């Protein structure tokens, strides 16, 4: 047994090991911590050796799980020790004790940088290792160029370069801009020529991260990856030390194939052929061997090859080989291979149409659902979920339900969610759907989320044919001796609404229904009591002719709960009691709930939203997103939504009593709906503020503060460039208050500039910042005009651009000083890399006298600037429209809370954003079709089509469909248009609307001051 070189440390570790129990151990640790603390207090008296020893002890104690809340400084300070042994301890312990968010780490940046750029190779390695393991954004910004240099240096040993490659990878993950330098792709390609396999392995990891975010720049790496793979697969020129159980570095093979999965296709026929040869060899040549390590390694390569074949959508023959292999794997006994077989079959479903072949294995997969190992069961569940369609839904859901009774708790929630979704998506008939959900609640009530029973209520409410059936089922379940509370809720709700439909059946009279529900009341929680009270009120209402005995019974209950400590129950009791004495009026008030508006299933959304946290986006997901079809989910029919609107206000206000609307809350899970109905106050639409607009949009020139300006700027002044100086109205700035207030509304100015290409971005008593822009394809050329309005110079002028990731912005040098009454121009080059609605921010500051003024301004380099109008004829529009089949390339959404606009106004609004409305394209006069071309580096020129279907009866809602050849673009465009429709910027030239009832969703967004708060860009600007 090797002993550590430090006696004190070994003795301490032995002491800890000799402790009889946890208590003794804690005492020993406390004693040691006390000792270390005292020694650290008198740091000067410590020898480097002692310091090192104590820091190691601290790490050991920390590793045992004790809090070590001091000594971090000492660990960090060892980093700057001159000798290797102390420095090494400093680096290692620091990277274990601290994380990237720790303040102390910042203190070390300089030392770390000196070690990286210094000549001591060992120090370089230590520094690169620490930065690679715990470096954060700050490290990325200050060290990336130095790390790049080391990676590319021909004088460094491979030892340093492989560390530099991974260190750079870390920095890139923290801030992708660090390798956004011209020519990096070429260097990356050169790195792939590396002969040292350690450097190559590290570089390949770096490449995977780079191509996963943006493959276009790295095309030149593709053939090189194929070459590397060939070399490895053929075992050509691979040093013995890089083979693992006879297999040339399986890890490098896997990484290389991973990188290749991020390129959408391989165009060059030769490269493609070579790659397929290699893949074929891997698929055919991987045999099962006795040695487990060799087996694992060769199958690691095989599974990666399978993934790559799936990605390349290889010829049918190769794909069927893959399916055959996977079919074999899911039947083997070796658990790891079976697990991976199931997992990869699920992945395969996402990319190609192999459903029918996989269905043949259904029985085999179901056996895995009963495997003792939860990991395997989970994969089987995923696969069954993925392969389910109308033809096998009944079988699969039955299996899931059966399994639910025996499944462990860890899986029940997921299982019931998946069963509920499948039942909803593939129900051959709706009664089956109701059966499944009620069974789910019955078997695993604790794991059935509210969303699931809300959804079944929605279906039943919206499908009249289903109502008697659902009520019968609910009634049957109530007969069971012990039922889950969720079952009480759903049954009570259904029977309250639809119980009267069962009128003549045995055991279904109002009185009997009431009795059986009321039996459950003593055992349920307060939330359920509220539902029961509503049910009683409904039963009472439906009981015709009235049954005096039942009435007095229910009234007695209402009376009893009038003094409930729960406000909700109390309120319901009081109100129902009062209402039920109104006789006929009760009928109107407690009428059946209106149908639910059509909306995406919350469940499916939930399932789709489960976030996966991975360092690189999944290649399969990226691909699958492009191929997935429209969800087949049942659509909740929506016949009566319009009925809701024309009800007289008097009646509405009754229906919207708090008790009832909270009832709505209970069952919809979407607070918007109830609020929409619940708010009746009318909201004045904002008027565009006076004539500010005219000023804003007028020609750009420097003006004095409007309050004191003696010579207002003539609006006909043509001077963008030359007229600046003589046009200045001079006003002594001395009298101004110390706090500098902007002139005009910054948000309004920004919105105006979103549709105009020149105007004032910002103005205060000292400075005016104007902007003029020219846009061509995905490039923008902007000029900032910084005009000093005063007779004194503006000092310490600083402009900093904070670009979002999708924009590359280069700002030319901004002078430190702007002379009195002068205007300087600063050109700004913008490149749009990919579609996004994020906004760039200009962080601008200057000094006037003793005042330091700093403003954050959004730059109008917004999505619509990269649109170019294009008119499309009917012959062109529809084939394009149809060729984009569904999500994620074509997205549809029902938008509510839209500012009601006449169609013509809406068309103008669209045109102002370069979304050109093609009149007459859509035969329905209530619809609009628009088209545009979007430009970015990643998408190039891409056609984008939009269709808006409005509802003439309700102008506050519309259905919008957006389609383009790029999923991100489609999504961003959809969100962009939605923002424009819901929150019409005050600066666009929309005439004031007549006051219209607004939904509360739109309400805050349309009033000017909150608009700024709701606008994420503004919030960002305020935060920065």
């Amino acid at each position: 047994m090797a002993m550590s070189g430090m006696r004190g440390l070994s003795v301490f570790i032995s002491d800890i090991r000799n402790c009889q129990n946890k208590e003794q151990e804690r005492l020993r640790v406390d004693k040691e911590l006390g000792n270390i603390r005292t020694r650290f207090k008198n740091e000067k008296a410590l020898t480097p050796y002692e310091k090192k020893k104590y820091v190691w002890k601290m790490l050991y104690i920390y590793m045992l799980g004790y809090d070590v809340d001091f000594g971090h400084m000492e660990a960090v300070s060892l980093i700057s020790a001159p000798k290797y042994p102390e420095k090494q301890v400093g680096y290692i312990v620091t990277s274990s004790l601290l994380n990237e968010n720790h303040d102390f780490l910042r203190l070390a940046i300089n030392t770390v940088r000196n070690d990286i750029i210094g000549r001591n190779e060992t120090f370089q390695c230590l520094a690169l290792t620490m930065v690679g393991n715990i470096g954060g954004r700050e490290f990325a910004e200050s060290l990336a160029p130095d790390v790049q240099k080391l990676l590319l240096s021909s004088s460094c040993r491979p030892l340093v370069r492989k560390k530099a490659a991974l260190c750079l990878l870390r920095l890139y993950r923290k801030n992708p801009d660090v390798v956004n330098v011209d020519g990096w792709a070429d260097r990356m390609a050169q790195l792939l020529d590396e002969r040292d396999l350690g450097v190559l392995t590290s570089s390949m990891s770096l490449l995977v991260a780079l191509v996963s975010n943006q493959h276009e720049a790295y095309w030149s790496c593709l053939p090189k990856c194929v070459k590397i793979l060939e070399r490895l697969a053929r075992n050509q020129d691979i040093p013995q030390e890089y083979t693992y159980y006879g297999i040339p570095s399986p890890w490098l093979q896997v990484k290389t194939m991973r990188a290749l999965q991020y390129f959408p296709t391989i165009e060059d026929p030769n490269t493609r052929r070579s790659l397929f040869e290699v893949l074929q060899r891997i698929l055919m040549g991987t045999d099962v061997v006795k040695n487990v390590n060799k087996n694992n390694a060769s199958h690691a390569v095989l599974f990666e090859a399978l993934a790559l074949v799936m990605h390349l959508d290889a010829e049918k023959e190769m794909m069927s080989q893959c399916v055959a292999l996977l079919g074999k794997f899911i039947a083997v006994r070796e658990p790891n291979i079976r697990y991976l077989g199931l997992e990869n079959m699920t992945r395969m479903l996402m990319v190609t149409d192999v459903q029918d072949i996989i269905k043949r294995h259904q029985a085999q997969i179901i056996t895995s659902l009963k495997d003792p190992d939860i990991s395997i069961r989970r994969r089987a569940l995923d696969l069954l979920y993925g392969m389910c369609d109308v033809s096998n839904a009944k079988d699969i859901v039955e299996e899931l339900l059966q399994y639910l009774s025996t499944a462990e708790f860890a899986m029940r929630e997921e299982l019931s969610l998946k069963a509920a979704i499948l039942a909803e998506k593939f129900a051959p008939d709706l009664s089956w759907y109701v059966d499944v959900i009620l069974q789910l609640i019955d078997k695993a009530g604790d794991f059935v989320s509210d969303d699931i029973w809300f959804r079944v209520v929605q279906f039943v409410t919206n499908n009249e044919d289903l109502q008697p059936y659902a009520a019968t089922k609910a009634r049957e379940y109530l007969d069971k001796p012990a039922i889950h509370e969720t079952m009480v809720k759903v049954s009570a709700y259904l029977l309250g609404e639809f119980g009267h439909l069962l009128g003549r059946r045995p055991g279904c009279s109002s009185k009997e229904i009431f009795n059986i529900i009321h039996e459950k009341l003593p055992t349920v929680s307060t939330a359920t009591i509220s539902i029961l009270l509503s049910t009683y009120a409904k039963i009472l209402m439906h009981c015709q002719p009235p049954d005096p005995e039942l009435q007095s019974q229910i009234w007695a209950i209402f009376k009893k709960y009038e003094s409930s400590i729960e406000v909700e129950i109390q309120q319901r009791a009081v109100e129902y009691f009062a209402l039920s004495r109104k006789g006929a009026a009760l009928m109107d008030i407690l009428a059946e709930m209106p149908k639910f508006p059509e909306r995406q299933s919350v469940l499916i959304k939930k399932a789709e939203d489960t976030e996966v946290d991975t360092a690189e986006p999944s290649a399969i997901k990226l691909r699958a997103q492009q191929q997935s079809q429209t969800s087949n989910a049942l659509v909740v029919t929506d016949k009566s939504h319009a009925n809701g609107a024309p009800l007289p206000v008097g009646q509405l206000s009754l229906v919207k009593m708090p008790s009832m609307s909270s009832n709505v809350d209970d069952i919809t899970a979407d607070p918007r709906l109830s609020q929409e109905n619940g708010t009746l106050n009318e909201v004045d639409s904002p008027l565009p503020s006076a004539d500010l607009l005219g000023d804003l949009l007028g020609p750009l020139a420097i003006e004095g503060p409007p309050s004191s300006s003696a010579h207002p700027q003539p609006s006909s002044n043509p001077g963008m460039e030359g007229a600046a100086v003589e046009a200045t109205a001079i006003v002594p700035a001395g009298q101004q208050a110390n706090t500098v207030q902007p002139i005009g509304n910054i948000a309004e100015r920004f919105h105006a500039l979103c549709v105009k290409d020149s105007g004032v971005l910002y103005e205060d008593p000292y400075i005016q910042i104007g902007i003029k822009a020219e846009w061509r394809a995905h490039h923008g050329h902007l000029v900032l005009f910084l005009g000093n309005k005063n007779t004194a110079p503006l000092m310490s002028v600083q402009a900093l651009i904070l670009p979002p990731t999708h924009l590359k912005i280069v700002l030319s040098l901004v002078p430190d000083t702007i002379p009195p009454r002068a205007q300087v121009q600063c050109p700004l080059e913008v490149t749009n890399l990919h579609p996004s609605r994020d906004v760039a921010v200009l962080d601008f500051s200057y000094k006037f006298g003793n005042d330091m003024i700093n403003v954050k301004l959004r730059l109008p380099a917004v999505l619509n600037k990269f649109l170019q109008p294009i008119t499309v004829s009917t012959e062109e529009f529809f084939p394009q429209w149809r060729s984009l089949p569904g999500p994620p390339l074509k997205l549809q959404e029902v938008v509510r809370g839209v500012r009601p606009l006449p169609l013509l106004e809406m068309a103008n609004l669209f045109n102002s954003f370069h979304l050109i409305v093609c009149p007459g394209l859509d035969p329905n006069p209530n619809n609009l079709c628009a088209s545009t071309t979007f430009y970015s580096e990643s998408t190039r020129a891409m056609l984008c089509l939009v269709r808006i279907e409005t509802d003439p009866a309700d102008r506050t809602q519309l259905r919008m469909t957006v389609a383009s050849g790029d999923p991100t673009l489609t999504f961003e465009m959809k969100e962009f248009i939605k923002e424009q429709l819901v929150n019409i910027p005050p600066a666009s030239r929309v005439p004031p609307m007549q006051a219209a009832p607004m939904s509360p969703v739109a309400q805050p967004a349309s009033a000017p001051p909150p608009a700024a708060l709701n606008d994420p860009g503004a919030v960002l600007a305020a935060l920065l």
Partner: protein
Amino acid sequence: MIRFILLQNRQGKTRLAKYYVPLEDSEKHKVEYEVHRLVVNRDPKYTNFVEFRTHKVIYRRYAGLFFSLCVDITDNELAYLECIHLFVEILDHFFSNVCELDLVFNFHKVYLILDEFILAGELQETSKKAIIERMGELEKLE
């Protein structure tokens, strides 16, 4: 990428913990506790993979020690499983017939070896020879 690496014995004592993502101390303790519970009772006939929160843990047991790697859900399981074995082979070579006590008394050496093997949550060097030679160089500097 590898999120973290844990070496734990059957009782749940941590023998090495390396995090490549920033976690608070309390979160680290929780993670160590949960991962131990997750792997310790699994039957040896089960898979070496188990879901952990939004990631998965690839683990392997050597005598009384569990080596666990937490990786992304999309990562290649078998490649990481063999990565554990390669690490064990390196330790075995370095300590010549490694046992738990070697790792306890020389935990600082284990950290050093790991830093030559994995960096930034990615595999850095797969040559046992290269790593052992490098350790020799470093020992001379001590």
